[in-house]
């Protein structure tokens, strides 16, 4: 399903005054595409993602997913958070089955689906462990599997690898690309890491400082499927350089 963001803006009102987090933003994300949203911290990119997820209400504008207006969170848009947010009282398998249970899928069917995703993330051996026993990378793989098990049309990832070390992060990026190629979801991926933004995306949406606006949409034409070799090509370096310049300009302007 495609995601249409139309003139979406967000103003936070508190006792100390109002903060304009997001200036009106419009963006069309075609079905099945992988779009990364890149911007300096506090530019409202997470806010934009949360509005698409339905966790935050837009002060103006609308978001449509597959033509239907978003008016709250729903199973059609899976979300992966930076802090993993696995349910610590549930095992890895029960975490993956959470959405299915909420939907009332019978246990046997649930188990078949969780088996598939446990295999997909290579954590069959950890099915009955609790999240506290997992490393950061493993936790995030479970969180991705949990979102996917629900079979959402759109996957929203909010700086999912921000807390991981560089090596794990690189492996997780390839993992998400593998998932995307296999399940053909529409993916919106928020990050402040330029290399990550380029490596993953069909197009990088660059946002300005607060209040966030879309400064530029940079298409990424690197061939797919991509693995770490892609990072060492001149095309990759050129894109990285260009985005670095835009972000630097944005930060020093």
């Amino acid at each position, binding site marked *: 399903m495609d995601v249409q963001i139309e003139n979406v803006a967000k103003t936070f009102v508190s006792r100390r005054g109002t903060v304009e987090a997001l200036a009106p933003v419009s963006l069309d994300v075609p079905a099945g595409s992988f779009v990364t949203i890149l911007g300096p911290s506090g530019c409202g990119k997470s806010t934009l993602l949360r509005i698409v997820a*339905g966790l935050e209400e837009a002060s103006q504008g609308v978001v449509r997913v597959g033509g239907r207006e978003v008016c709250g969170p729903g199973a059609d*848009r899976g979300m992966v958070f930076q*802090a993993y947010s696995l*349910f610590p*009282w549930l095992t890895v398998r029960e975490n993956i089955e*959470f959405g299915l249970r909420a939907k009332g899928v019978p246990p046997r069917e649930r188990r078949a689906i969780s088996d598939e995703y446990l295999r997909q993330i290579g954590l069959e051996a950890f099915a009955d462990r609790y999240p*506290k026993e997992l490393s950061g990378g493993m936790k995030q793989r479970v969180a991705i599997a949990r979102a996917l098990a629900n079979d959402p049309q759109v996957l929203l990832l909010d700086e999912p690898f921000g807390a991981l070390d560089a090596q794990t992060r690189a492996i997780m990026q390839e993992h998400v690309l593998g998932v995307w190629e296999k399940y053909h979801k529409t993916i919106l991926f928020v990050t402040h890491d330029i290399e990550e933004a380029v490596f993953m995306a069909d197009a990088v949406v660059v946002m300005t400082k607060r209040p966030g606006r879309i400064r530029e949409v940079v298409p990424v034409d690197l061939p797919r499927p991509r693995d770490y070799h892609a990072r060492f090509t001149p095309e990759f370096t050129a894109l990285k350089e260009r985005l670095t310049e835009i972000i630097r300009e944005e930060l020093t302007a």
Partner: protein
Amino acid sequence: MRAERPLDARATPAGSRRPGRGFKPLGEIPASLYTTYAAAGFLGLVAVWSLLTSTRAVDPLFLPSPAEILRRGWELFRDMGFGADVAATVLRVFLGFAAASAVALPLGILMGVYRPIEALVEPLVSFARYMPASAFIPLLILWVGVGEAEKVAVIFLGSVFSLVLMVAVHIRQAQRELVEAAYTLGASDAFVVRHVILPNAWPAIYDTLRLVLGWAWTYIIVAELVAADSGIGHVILQSQRMLNTGNIIFGILVIGVIGLVSDLVMKAAGRALFAWRG
């Protein structure tokens, strides 16, 4: 021995073998050492106590020796039917505490989950919480007499209000991210309450129950001191009238032991129930 020392020092990580180990701020000690210290604390108390009594530094009328206390305790059980008193007290605490939990859990959960219910109930409960349960004893005697109902009611009043407030606070402490994650997975409001907010709060609620159970014991003794014909508090009061300090101290110790044992049992049960905790 002396020749081995330097080798020994090299084999262990720096600092761990220094005298006074474990005295690093927030330092850890092995479980066996912990048990040793704990036993030393109890033994130290008994030693000081024995010293005070055996040297006649204090009048045995006011503080009998530990051996004398044990002897008195044995007599209490053998001749005075103290077992029935202990059972009566335990039952009262249990009933009062169970009744308080039965009211406080649902009410506290509703208060924590739904703001309007909190607004309705919270100020009332906060107000009631500051009224000492023991002050209600005269009133309760008028209302329900001096029987079992009065004892149980004191425990109930003593624990229910704090329990409600603390349960509500634990419910409120649900991590926003977990709730949001559940919503993005398609969970309904009711599903979020039942499968996220409640499981998230259970360990803290359980710890609160443990804590408040300890308070319940202080109320029961007060209740039994005022009007009772059985129970540990009753025995303590009777013993005071007869200057029987040995029995008083033994009664107090029994309460301590029951409290310690029930707390250890609840702690172990909690560890098993909430094995997922980090």
